[in-house]
């Protein structure tokens, strides 16, 4: 059975990727997970320099989900390359670096530094963080901005370039198309949904940033729909995510059109989820006599009759 999938020039041993911001820099999990057993690890978003992020409280739970406004705290790309990358390399992890920027030049510069470093597998362009004012989202919410960032980074790196799209726009597929036209090797979606929670007793927002990004099982059906729509629109691979909590959820994204998937919030609940996901996918492929997981991608059947669908 072949679990490997290809994202541009990057070959993943399985389609499971730890979602950015939900797995630290990977090294934090070395004690509990064999880092080389994951398809890849998308590390916490990195700017050129260090950032302290927002004040606590930074998260609050919601029905079947959570809201976060971390504010992209991070050690900056140079410290990442010198302090974290060597250990990730030693542990044979496939590393996707989530790249942030407040300006187009910053995206380019961070990507250039990563391209010169040893052990980076791909660049995921975070143009979709809903929690910071300057940068990022201003590119991700404009078709021209998306095209400009992707094509500028494309020019300075041979690594696969994977813009990460926001769901907080009317038409996600048009952004996937802008990314494809800019030269992206794949797109990943979705980042979190802008949301808020208020404490009615104090009438204060429950996180310090007032608004934050919603993740977890609550968002899954919307994310699946967005992956499905983008699959109809672009030819490049899609990395799907949003609320995956077990193997069935991962398979659902792949059937909708995702070549690989990322898992974020569910890793908080169960850091040992990865072997369970791999086993569940294997089981399914066996049961359905599918030799390669990549053969499952985009196989959704939308022509079934009503009686077939209801299982009668």
């Amino acid at each position: 059975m072949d679990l490997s999938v290809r994202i541009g020039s990057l070959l993943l041993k399985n389609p499971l990727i730890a979602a950015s911001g939900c797995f630290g820099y990977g090294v934090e999990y070395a004690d509990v997970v064999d880092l080389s057993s994951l398809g890849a690890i998308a590390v916490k978003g990195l700017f050129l320099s260090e950032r302290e992020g927002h004040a606590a409280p930074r998260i609050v739970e919601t029905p079947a989900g959570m809201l976060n406004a971390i504010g992209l705290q991070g050690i900056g790309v140079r410290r990442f390359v010198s302090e974290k990358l060597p250990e990730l390399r030693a542990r044979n992890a496939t590393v996707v670096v989530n790249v942030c920027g407040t300006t187009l030049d910053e995206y380019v510069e961070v990507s250039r530094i990563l391209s010169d470093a040893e052990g980076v597998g791909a660049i995921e362009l975070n143009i979709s963080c809903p929690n910071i004012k300057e940068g990022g989202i201003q590119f991700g919410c404009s078709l021209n901005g998306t095209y400009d960032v992707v094509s500028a980074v494309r020019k300075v790196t041979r690594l696969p370039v994977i813009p990460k799209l926001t769901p907080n726009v009317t038409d996600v597929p048009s952004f996937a198309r802008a990314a494809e036209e800019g030269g992206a090797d794949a797109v990943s979606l979705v980042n979190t949904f802008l949301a808020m929670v208020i404490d009615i007793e104090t009438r204060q927002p429950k996180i310090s940033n007032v608004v934050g990004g919603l993740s977890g099982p609550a968002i899954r059906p919307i994310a699946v729909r967005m992956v499905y729509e983008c699959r109809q629109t672009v030819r490049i691979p899609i990395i799907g995510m949003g609320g995956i909590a077990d193997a069935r959820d991962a398979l659902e994204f792949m059937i909708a059109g995702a070549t690989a998937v990322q898992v974020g919030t569910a890793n908080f609940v169960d850091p040992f989820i990865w072997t369970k996901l791999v086993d569940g996918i294997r089981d399914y492929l066996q049961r359905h006599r599918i030799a390669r997981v990549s053969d499952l991608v985009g196989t959704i059947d939308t022509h079934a009759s009503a009686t077939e669908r209801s299982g009668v």
Partner: protein
Amino acid sequence: MPVDVAAEVIVNRALSADYNLVALAAPAIAAAAAPGQFVMLKANAGFDPLLRRPFSIFEILRDGGGTPSALTILSKRVGPSTNLLYDARAGQRIACLGPIGRPFTIVDAPVEGWMIAGGVGLAPFATLAESLRARRVETTLFYGARRAAELFHLDFFRALGVALVLTTEDGSAGETGRVVAPLDRKLAARDRQAPVMLYACGPEAMLAATARIAARHQRPCQVSVERVMGCGLGGCYSCVVPMRGEDGGRHHVRSCIAGPVLAADQIIWD
């Protein structure tokens, strides 16, 4: 190295309308745990609530041969997860990930160990008291609660030879008022040459007051902080505490992996 155990509830004892004590069969975690460490618990399957919650390890229970067999959790109801824990039934299984976090640094005699606990902040001090007393360290527990009925486990500490200084807000036991008041007085009365290590756990305002008092009397102080935590393993950056770095700047430190025990004089209490 933390492990995840589907730990059976051995017994769940209600201590008051808010507090309960749950014993969980988690021998591997109990055997590895050090005072100040915590576990991440989830008492329900499914998504509501979704995330685990951090709890200090209260006691380590041992079998007849002295081998650690279980741990207990002292919990106070404040929301959905602690309600589930309050209502947990014997035989039920609770997902228990641990032990996690940087433990207390344990002093040796002649340094004295003074523990300052507010409410459910008593939780890390049962195991700490055992470790300190095992080293024959003179140990005092300053323990404040709302009322006498919410001062728990006093006999446990007495049996270990821990001196108790009790306060209640309503005056129903010990001194009336906040626990930091007697701490301040006793530090003022103490010989400067006689070393003391302060250990504090409780509400944020109490920790901040303890840190100020420790600084004023120039005593080292380790605090166990409590923050909203997403994962407990350093993955999410939710549980940060603002601290002064070596560069003098303000840094957000993840309390799950750099803590929960932190040096009071490095925390920025704003």
